[in-house]
C-alpha cells in the first residue's frame, strides 16, 4: 500500500471517528429544526424533511434570550477582566523566581484550583450576604468565578512567561528601563498570545458557568443563559426542539470562536495544563 493511499484511508477513518464523536452536536441542531411530530418519529429521521428555521427567532423571543445572553456576556467579560488583571502579574512573578516561597505560592494556587464550586458556594454565599455584595448578584458571581478560575489562568500563563527569555528583559534593564517598564514594554507584548488564549478559555468557561449563578442570582432578569436553560428543562418536558434551539443559540458563538481559534487554543492549553 502506497503512502498516499494509507494516508487517505487514515483520514477517512479519522473523519468517521469525528462524525461519531460529534454526533450529539449534530443531533442538537437537527432536533431544533424538526417539527413536533418529526421529533418523536420512530425510526428517528436523521435529516429534517421540513426544516423549521423560524424556531430560532421564536425561541429567542419566547424565552427572552437577549437578556440571558447579555447577562452571560457581562459575567464572562467581568470575570475575564478581573482574572487577567490580577492573574497576569501573579503568573509573571511565579515564572521568574525559584525559591521556597515561590514553591509555596504555586502550591497554594494549585490547591485552590481544585476546590469544587458546589462545595464552596455556601461559605461564599454567607460571605457575600454579610458584606452586602449579594445586593449586586452579577458582581457577586463575577468575584466567585474569578476566585475559582484564576488558578487555571495562572498555571497556563505562567507556562507562557517561562518561554519568554529572561535575557531580553535583562537587556532592557541594562538599557535603562525600570522593572515595571521592562515588564510592560518587553515581557507583556511577547507573552500576549498566551495571555489571550488563556483569557479566551476562561471566557468560554465563564460563559457557561452554572452553579454560582444558580445559587447567587434570584432575579430572573439578571440570570445567565445556563440558568435559563436549566429552568426550561422541566422533569417531564416534551419541548425538545425548543430546548435544543435554546441550546444551539447559546452554544453557537462559543463553537464558532473555538473553531476559528482552534489551533491556538489547543497549543495554549497543552503548553500549561499538565505543568
Amino acid at each position, binding site marked *: 500500500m502506497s503512502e498516499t493511499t494509507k494516508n487517505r484511508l487514515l483520514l477517512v477513518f479519522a473523519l468517521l471517528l469525528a462524525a461519531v464523536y460529534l454526533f450529539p452536536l449534530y443531533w442538537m441542531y437537527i432536533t431544533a429544526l424538526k417539527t413536533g411530530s418529526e421529533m418523536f418519529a420512530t425510526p428517528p429521521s436523521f435529516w429534517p424533511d421540513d426544516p423549521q428555521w423560524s424556531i430560532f427567532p421564536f425561541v429567542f423571543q419566547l424565552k427572552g434570550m437577549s437578556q440571558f445572553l447579555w447577562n452571560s456576556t457581562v459575567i464572562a467579560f467581568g470575570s475575564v477582566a478581573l482574572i487577567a488583571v490580577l492573574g497576569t502579574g501573579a503568573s509573571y512573578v511565579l515564572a521568574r523566581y525559584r525559591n521556597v516561597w515561590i514553591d509555596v505560592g504555586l502550591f497554594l494556587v494549585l490547591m485552590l484550583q481544585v476546590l469544587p464550586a458546589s462545595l464552596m458556594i455556601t461559605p461564599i454565599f454567607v460571605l457575600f450576604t454579610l458584606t452586602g455584595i449579594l445586593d449586586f448578584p452579577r458582581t457577586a458571581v463575577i468575584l466567585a468565578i474569578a476566585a475559582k478560575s484564576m488558578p487555571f489562568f495562572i498555571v497556563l500563563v505562567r507556562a507562557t512567561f517561562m518561554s519568554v527569555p529572561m535575557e531580553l528583559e535583562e537587556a532592557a534593564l541594562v538599557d535603562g528601563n*525600570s522593572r515595571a517598564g521592562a515588564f510592560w514594554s518587553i515581557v507583556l507584548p511577547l507573552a500576549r498570545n498566551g495571555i489571550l488564549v488563556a483569557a479566551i478559555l476562561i471566557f468560554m468557561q465563564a460563559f457557561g458557568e452554572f452553579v454560582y449563578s444558580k445559587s447567587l442570582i434570584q432575579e430572573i432578569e439578571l440570570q445567565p443563559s445556563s440558568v435559563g436553560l436549566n429552568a426550561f428543562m422541566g422533569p417531564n418536558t416534551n419541548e425538545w426542539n425548543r430546548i435544543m434551539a435554546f441550546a444551539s443559540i447559546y452554544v453557537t458563538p462559543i463553537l464558532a470562536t*473555538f473553531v476559528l481559534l482552534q489551533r491556538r487554543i489547543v497549543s495554549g492549553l497543552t503548553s500549561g495544563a499538565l505543568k
Partner: protein
Amino acid sequence: MRRLYSSLVDGRGFDLCLIGIPLAFLIVLSGVPLVYNVVMSFQAVDMFSLGSFIRPWVGFDNYRQLIAQPEFWPIMGHTATFLAASIAGQFLLGFALALFFWLNFPGASWLRGLFLVSWVMPGLVVGAVWNWLLSGDFGVFNFVLHQLHIISGNVFWRSDPAFALWSVIIANIWLGTSFNMIMLSVGLSSIPADLYEAAELDGAGALTRFWTITLPMMRSSIGALISLGLIFTLQQFDLFAAITAGGPNNSSNVAQYWAWDLSFKQYDFAKGAAISVIMIVVVMLASVYYVRSTRHEVRG
C-alpha cells in the same frame, strides 16, 4: 514616598505587588470560605444563625448524623462509581484516540483539535443534549443500540434507578474524552522517535514497544492526567443538574450534588458543610499527587 514609588516601579515592591494582590484576593475568596466551611461543619447552623459566627459548637455531631442517614453510604458508593467509571472511560477512549491520531496523517492535528469542542461547551448544554439523546422513548441512543442489537427493549436511562447514574457517566465520558486525548497526545509527541526505531531494529513488535517504551515514558503525564481527571470529575455538577438532578430517589446522587442539595434545597447548611469537608479532603489528596507528578517542572 519617593522610595516607595521607586520600589514599586523598580524593586522588590514591584514583585510583591504583582503577586500580593492576587494572593490576597484568592485567600479572601477561596481560603477564608474554605476555613469557614470547616468551622461550620462543627457547629449547629440554621437559617437564622447562618449569618453569625458565634454558634453552638456540636463537635462531630453533624458528621455522625450525616453518616447515620440511610442515603449516606449509597451516595458515597455512587460517587466512587462515578469517579472510577468516568476516569476509566475518558482515559481509555482518550488514549486510544491519541494513539490513532499519533499516526500523523495530513489533517490529523486539525481534526484532533476539533474534538475539543466537547470540552469547551457549557456543561448545562452538554447535559441538555445528552438528556435528549438518552431519552427513553424517543432517544436516538436507544435507537442506535437497538439497531446494533445490543439491547432489545428501550432503556429508560434517566428514570430507571439502575441506569440513572450511568446516563450521567456516559455524558461525562463524552465531555472529558477529548481533553484526555489532547493531553496524552502531548505526552506521546515528547517521546523521541529514535527509541522506537532502535526497538524496531531489535525486533520488538508494536505491542512490546507500547508496553516497554510508550507506557513507561508517559508515566508522569499519565499520573498527572488521572489526578486531574479525578479533580475535574469531583467538580462535575452541571451534568447532574441537567440530566437527573440526583434522582430518581437518590439513585444518581453523588457527594458534590448532595452537598449543594442539602444546603440550598433543604437548608441543612451544617450537614452540607460536613459533606463538603469530607470531599475537600479527598480532592486535596488527589491534588497533592497531581503536584507531585509535575514536581520536576515546578522545581524547574
